[in-house]
């Protein structure tokens, strides 16, 4: 097999991994601050994908443009979901939170089935069939744009947490819940903002993924699982870990498919997860907890 295939496949895996990383970043942000595991994460992403589909059909705007309003809509959705539904469960046992979010996921999947049906739906942008050639390297234009947008959104999120007062306040909540309350921070509002930001991340990722893959309601649970694999590999609660996990999973799946058989490529992603859990249970960039 020519060596260039490994280069091409690794590049494709890297680009896809960046978008996966952004999706998982949302999950990691929510868990890192609110300490709630969002089991409806993939389903929220399919909501964003269907929104992209509808808006693209109505306005004929590029998904990379649509990602801004869609991220905003998902932010509001996440904010309200946290305030209305999840907040009362914050201090309840984990299994209650788990069941609540699984129920939300099931409701979202069935609503999507009712409205859009089970068939795959996609969009066709002017660059849907384009690719860039650099010597032996041929890369999918849609993946390049989506990965670029993922990097921009991730950088904006990092900057928000590092340089804005609200970002610093959210980090304070994550570091010391009681301390944040003592200094007068409105923790409930900050939790809702964080959940909104996580949902916005997944909304942006959904809009970008729509340029790369088709959407069906059934892919939601698969992406929830994928997000878990990524954040556990990278380190649950670590933002750079989520991006790194996405890249690793993207490249591992791609190269595993070439070296072994493509139909079993997710086996390699789970193999990597098992290795991480065995040798570094907190994840590659995760912090050890007592």
């Amino acid at each position: 097999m020519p060596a260039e295939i490994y280069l091409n496949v690794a590049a494709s895996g890297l680009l896809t991994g960046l978008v996966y990383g952004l999706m998982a970043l949302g999950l990691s942000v929510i868990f890192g601050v609110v300490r709630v595991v969002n089991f409806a994460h993939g389903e929220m992403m399919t909501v964003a994908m269907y929104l992209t589909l509808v808006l693209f059909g109505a306005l004929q705007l590029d998904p990379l443009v649509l990602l801004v309003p869609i991220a905003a809509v998902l932010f509001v959705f996440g904010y309200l979901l946290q305030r209305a539904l999840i907040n009362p469960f914050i201090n309840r046992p984990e299994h209650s939170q788990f069941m609540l979010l699984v129920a939300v996921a099931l409701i979202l999947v069935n609503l999507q089935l009712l409205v859009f049906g089970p068939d795959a739906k996609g969009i066709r942008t002017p660059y849907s069939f384009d690719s860039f050639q650099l010597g032996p390297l041929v890369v999918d234009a849609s993946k390049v744009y989506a990965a670029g947008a993922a990097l921009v959104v991730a950088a904006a999120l990092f900057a928000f947490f590092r340089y804005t007062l609200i970002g610093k306040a959210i980090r304070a909540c994550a570091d010391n819940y009681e301390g944040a309350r003592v200094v007068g921070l409105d923790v409930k509002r900050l939790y809702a903002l964080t959940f909104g930001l996580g949902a916005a991340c997944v909304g942006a990722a959904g809009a970008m993924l729509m340029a790369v893959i088709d959407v069906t309601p059934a892919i939601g649970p698969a992406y929830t699982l994928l997000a878990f694999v990524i954040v556990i590999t990278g380190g649950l609660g670590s933002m750079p870990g989520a991006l790194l996990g996405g890249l690793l999973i993207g490249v591992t799946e791609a190269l595993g498919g070439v070296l072994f058989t493509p139909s079993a490529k997710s086996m390699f992603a789970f193999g990597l997860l098992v290795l991480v859990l065995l040798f570094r249970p907190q994840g590659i960039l995760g912090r050890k907890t007592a």
Partner: protein
Amino acid sequence: MTQRINRRQFNKALAAAGAATALNPFSIVRAQAAKLKVGVLLPRSGVQAGIGQDCHRVVQITNGILGDLGLPGLDILNGDTESNVDVARSRAERLISEGAQLLVGAFDSGQTTAIAQVAEQRGIPLVINIAAAPPITEQGYKFVFRNFPTAPMILGDAFANQLEVFAASGVAPKTAVFMHVNDTFGVAMQKGFTGVMSKFTMPYKVVDTIAYDPAARDLSVEVAKAKASGAEALVLVSRLNDAMLLTRELVKQRWSPQAILSMGPGWYEDQYLKTLGKLADGPISFVPWYDPNKKLARRLEAAHAKAYPDINLNTNHIYTFEALLVAADAFKRAGSADPKALADAIRATDIKDNVSTGPGIQFNAKGQNDKLKNSAIQNRGGKLVVVAPKAASNARPELPIKPYDKR
């Protein structure tokens, strides 16, 4: 002037009225027998809903064509199998209870197997429209008939037609990569592929076999691997969604094989043609199809085009129509809706003026039409043309396919 009725006239009138009343039940029987009650079982919801709805389209126009042929109309009772084997079984039971005198269905082999068991137990004839699993007609059933090729028949004809296509186009690829969807259908075809291929002298050697996940959302790795094999042709067993994903990847990865040869659904379907536009041109599908030169095929094509101008006539329509044609023809010859008489009449079917490729509709002792032939159809300008076998074709094959970057 008033007319008085005498006793004799009154008695005659009374006798006439009595006779009319007494004979009335017979006229009811004749009215019931004028139309055969046919239970049509299709997966009209669930994962196969699109196909079930597609089959149903032709059910709605069949009575008009049967009338033109001088055949009795059919009273259709619809049953939705919900793409589920257990539901298919219970719907078959229910349709029989509701008075169905013959069943037609059900696209999927698993669902059809369940319906066949019910039909045999209840002694109601079943005419299968589409289902390729060989065991269905190997059980010794007396009430089950299939006018659709089995999987080995499909594979054998595919290789025979490929040879004809290569000879007619003057292009014979020397190497091929075989890609198949990793589900029950794809794996069954993959298992049969090597065995059946060895019976033919094919010009190409299979250099790599690539199985892929039926739920795959991205087939870039699979296509990269296929491209890296350096094969001249791509041989496929796929379904609709993956056919579209594969085409997108072929374009993006700038790989235009000499030939794309499909032995399954997907590549000729309307959604494929409409979604991909000019990028859909070129692939050749080896499928159970129709002979465009047959009189009835042209009649069905015209009626279908009138009712559904945006939808091409396809396998789903052809074989569902022929199943109903078999039912109407048998009912006419049997002169009765008695299940045994109907089954005997179906067994004696000999329809020469039909739609599908091959000499016509006849059933062997097992209830299988073993004379069916498959066709090779090529996508051209959003339409489908038949390129093999030559006797049932309306165009010559065009190979190599036009490179994607030159369209």
